[in-house]
């Protein structure tokens, strides 16, 4: 398939209702960190962008939101063309300029504090990270606490960044500044907002 077809195909079939479905899943996940929200396949972006991450981008990104792509996505012209055609979002030159960051390879990703953290006055001016993960259950178990969680919650995404728990702890300490994370797995997603305190569960 040539790049023009790839960039035009695979958007939402029902833009209004699909965007709402995806947003509600993200909103519920953000409000209840650690819960897994199931999502049907609504978008078909070119690889290595996944269907879930593509759908999240379609529902939240537009020409107001610079998007940063990690090197594996950056290298793929069809991904850039697809995002450009469907969302109109400009590409951010550095992680610190990004409103959203799409990360296909979380293991090798830049440090969380390299992204926009917001300011003490405007902590909302921070990057939301969309991490592509294989699933939400096969990695090391993370114990979650914080707003949105009644007692504790648990999630186990594989292939997370190096020193992820320690980085999240520092992210917590920067509150109200900090980044929020959307974990996009095939067919489901989950969120780790900056308020969620994460501990590694002992096996």
């Amino acid at each position, binding site marked *: 398939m040539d790049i023009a077809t790839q960039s035009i195909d695979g958007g939402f079939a029902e*833009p*209004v*209702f699909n*965007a*709402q*479905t995806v*947003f*509600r899943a*993200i*909103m*519920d996940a*953000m*409000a*209840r960190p650690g819960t897994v929200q199931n999502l049907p396949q609504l978008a078909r972006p070119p690889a290595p962008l996944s269907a879930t991450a593509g759908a999240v981008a379609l*529902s*939240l*990104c*537009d020409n*107001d*939101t610079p998007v940063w792509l990690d090197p594996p996505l950056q290298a793929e012209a069809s991904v850039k063309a697809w995002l450009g055609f469907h969302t109109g979002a400009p590409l951010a030159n550095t992680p610190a300029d990004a*409103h959203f960051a799409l990360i296909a390879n979380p293991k090798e990703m830049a440090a969380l504090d390299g992204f926009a953290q917001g*300011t*003490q*006055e*405007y*902590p*909302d001016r*921070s990057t*939301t990270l969309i991490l592509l993960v294989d699933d939400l259950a096969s990695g090391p178990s993370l114990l979650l606490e914080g*707003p*949105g*969680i*009644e007692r504790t919650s648990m999630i186990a995404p594989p292939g997370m960044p190096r020193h992820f728990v320690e980085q999240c702890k520092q992210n917590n300490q920067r*509150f*109200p500044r900090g980044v*929020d994370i959307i974990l996009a797995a095939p067919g489901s997603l989950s969120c780790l*907002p*900056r*308020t969620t305190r994460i501990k590694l569960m002992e096996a």
Partner: protein
Amino acid sequence: MNAQSNDIATYNFAYLDEQTKRMIRRAILKGIAIPGYQVPFASREMPMPYGWGTGGVQVTASIIGPDDVLKVIDQGADDTTNAVSIRAFFKKVAKVAVTTETAKASIIQTRHRIPEHPLNAGQVLVFQVPIPEPLRFLEPRETETRKMHALEEYGLMHVKLYEDIAKHGRIATTYAYPVKVEGRYVTDPSPTPKFDNPKMHRSPALQLFGAGREKRIYAVPPFTDVVSLDFEDHPFEVQTFDQPCALCGAENVYLDEVILDDHGGHMFVCSDTDHCEKRRADGHHGHLAPETHLASEETEPAE
């Protein structure tokens, strides 16, 4: 285009255009991630005046889907102008199911009350907020209040509550009673009576706040600490009523005073009409309840 048809097919689903919804949705997500922080957003003109719930309507329009069931209350009542017209608005522009029953709703848009019936985990409560900034009447400059929030400098609010005690012997604030969310941001719970403040604390429902004129959205996620400000020797207290609801006999609910005539006749009734009707349907009786029950407009003034 065919403009003949009666429904507003020429508007997008839920009235707002998609770019506006995305902008509001992003603000909602930031609000949830930073509980109690007021996220600025590009509030739109709505087909209703400021002060009638334009913020709440924009939030509801951005989250609502075709499967949602919407309830709208105004001071607890489902049958007052503001509630009726907003419910009709969404029925028309989003074709969603509407209800007056708290337990059946997935989204409850509210002006100044939290329903008496406990909310559950799947529900979203959308507040209409007139003045989102709790410090605004103490410090009119936005630049300064923003700095105060940034530095967590809330001494002024405590001074205000202290002055209440010095003047009146107690904290005289009865509505829009300031709360601290998750130990960080001092937040305006919107002009709900302070009676409702404890319901916000660790509520299983997601609480979203929209202020249209002031262009702010904020949120309290489920199971989040919401503590009303007070002093050790003057602890926070809710209003109490010395009589039960005159129609359904409910105690420990918030009551409205209704004037019955111009000779001083009055009664106290549940402000939450759904709660009151449910109780009467279940056979509860207050001392002024009509014999043939249900139908709420039979309080003819006594001559």
